[in-house]
């Protein structure tokens, strides 16, 4: 079984498509109803939460696609569907042309895709030594011949992420937040993946540690030709890392564009609002629009465009029709009635 995995990995046909990842119409619905009996007694209907609705994107080889959005916008849910941890309610994920949820050999695919999770502490088993944690994918995918080779490889990986090979003997609680993030990266790299999904909560890290992690991730990308799906709340971080950016709001990607284009000329009213809300470190005194309102409850989102209660450009149609994504000549996709009608 293990031999087969290695062979499959080594002989995977080199694909000619420039896209490593294709997500088409991804949706995920969660059933958040109360237990059946309570519902019957309280006469409540079943409740569903649409965490992700109709999300499509492609990621070219060696590029970084970032998803940015506020808490609860569906970023982590997309990430889990893309790495194969969560089955979509609808839609398709193709990795190198293979349909992840439709017949692809998952064992082979999983070796080529790794994820770095939002909560590094929860994702590291506290009872395992760090070398054991990092070696786990190597063992699971049968990527080393013997213990010596595993040990050697773990030492290499620790060095690669800026830790000491001797750190392998310690346990996760003996490390700082930034160091634990490095351990997660080392483990993710141990199966020699091509595609890394990083749900890194850099907002929880000190800027000094964040800089170390972001620089490390860029170096590793250059060194190994990795493709990234990078998830963050922080627009400045995303600008620093991404080739292209998708902005999410209440489960949908409302604008997707090349990084420079997005920052130079944001189109969707929500993208503009997000950019406006970023604290102005350069202290240019740029005039800012006041941000209004709160993010709606995802169980009961507003009809039509979910952003309409907060949108300064909203008009009648926005309360009725859900805007669909239109792709412009520059490849930018925007889902907004006002943009479509040329009002922006």
């Amino acid at each position: 079984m293990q031999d087969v995995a290695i062979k499959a990995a080594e002989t995977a046909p080199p694909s000619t498509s420039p896209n490593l990842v294709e997500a088409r119409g991804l949706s995920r619905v969660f059933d958040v109803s109360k237990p059946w009996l309570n519902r019957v007694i309280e006469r409540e209907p079943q409740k569903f939460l649409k965490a992700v609705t109709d999300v499509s994107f492609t990621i070219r080889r060696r590029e970084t696609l970032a998803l940015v959005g506020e808490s609860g916008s569906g970023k982590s849910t997309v990430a889990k569907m893309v790495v194969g941890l969560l089955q979509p309610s609808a839609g398709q994920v193709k990795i190198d042309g293979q349909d992840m949820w439709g017949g692809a050999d998952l064992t082979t695919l999983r070796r080529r895709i790794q994820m770095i999770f939002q909560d590094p502490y929860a994702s590291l088993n506290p009872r395992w030594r760090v070398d054991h944690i990092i070696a786990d994918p190597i063992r699971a995918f049968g990527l080393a011949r013997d213990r010596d080779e595993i040990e050697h490889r773990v030492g290499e990986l620790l060095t690669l992420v800026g830790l000491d090979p001797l750190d392998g003997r310690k346990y996760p609680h003996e490390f700082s937040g930034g160091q634990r993030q490095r351990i997660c990266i080392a483990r993710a790299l141990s199966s020699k993946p091509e595609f890394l999904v990083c749900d890194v909560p850099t907002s929880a890290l000190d800027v000094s540690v964040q800089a170390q992690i972001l620089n490390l991730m860029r170096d590793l990308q250059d060194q190994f030709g990795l493709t990234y799906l990078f998830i963050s709340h922080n627009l400045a971080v995303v600008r620093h890392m991404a080739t292209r950016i998708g902005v999410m709001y209440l489960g949908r990607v409302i604008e997707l564009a090349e990084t420079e284009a997005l920052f130079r000329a944001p189109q969707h009213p929500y993208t503009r609002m997000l950019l406006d809300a970023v604290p102005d470190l350069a202290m240019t005194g740029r005039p800012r629009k006041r941000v209004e309102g709160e993010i709606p409850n995802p169980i009961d989102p507003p009809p039509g465009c979910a952003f309409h209660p907060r949108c300064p450009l909203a008009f009648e149609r926005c309360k009725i029709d859900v805007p669909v994504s239109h792709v412009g000549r520059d490849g930018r996709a925007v889902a907004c009635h006002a943009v479509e009608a040329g009002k922006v």
Partner: protein
Amino acid sequence: MSVPVLSVRNLRVEFPTRRGTLVAVDDVSFDIAAGEVLGVVGESGAGKSMTGTAVIGLLEPPGRIAGGQVLLKGERIDNLPPEKMRRVRGKRIGMVFQDPLTSLNPLYRVGEQLIETIRTHTDASASEARAKAIGLLEAAGIQGASRRIDSYPHEFSGGMRQRVVIALALAAEPELIIADEPTTALDVSIQAQIIELLKRLCRERGAAIMLITHDMGVIAETADRVAVMYAGRIAEIGPVRDVVQRPQHPYTRGLMGSIPKLEAGGARLAQIRGSMPRLTAIPKGCAFNPRCELAVERCRQERPEPVHAGGSDVACWLAGAATAGKAPVEAMNSTPPVVTSDAKGGAA
């Protein structure tokens, strides 16, 4: 010049432990004037919260103030008996913490909590207090305040709860507000609203605000002056424009260089090598010396005291000399000499 609302003089906070005494705050001094926001920044563990907690007299034993003074409008409050200090805290100092739920009682409607605070500290009647509570919630940006005043804390979103806490902190019309990471748990759009609110209230009501955060962006937006803390001490304190755009202390310059900037695109980030020392192992001399690229022998032996340099006070042997005088743009965009571009982050 009038008396500052808050004066902290040579404050020292200690934690006696079995293995010796840990010094969490060491010789910290600063003032905050009425209507002024002092930002306090630094990496986690720098002693920001300990400083705030000591000012409001809420240090958890065995932690204690082991030296220095805290003065509110010129009167010492660090040596008040607990009962008196409790009244000062309720009436003259308001508090906002990162997690709004620590300040709100889940069992009471938010209105009840506001009204109780108002009535304890003013002689308002029940109906006056209710009207005032609604006014405060409105000032804190809660729409439909007259309806929502009878809701419980769990019925509000995180951003709304933080507004309620701010309303609560203002209820007794305090002279000083200590806000410890008030926006850290919030989304950017909500964070911007809360910052705006704090600024407005400070302006309109003339309160002094000590704003503790590790987010330089929030400081740049909000503060009039900034104190940068490192290993329990103030490394640099000065007007926000000077500290953010012309940082002088090598540590501040490293911090500024490591922040990805919206306007800077994808240039490589500066890194400070290593990490902050633990309280059990604070280096001799300048606490920053093992991480500082400019360190000289003197830095390893003698501790630098703050000296005037430009508009700021800087605790560095090189202050005013080698590190000063860079044009603001240059200081923001270039890699400061303190940082290393070693991809592996040194001993981090």
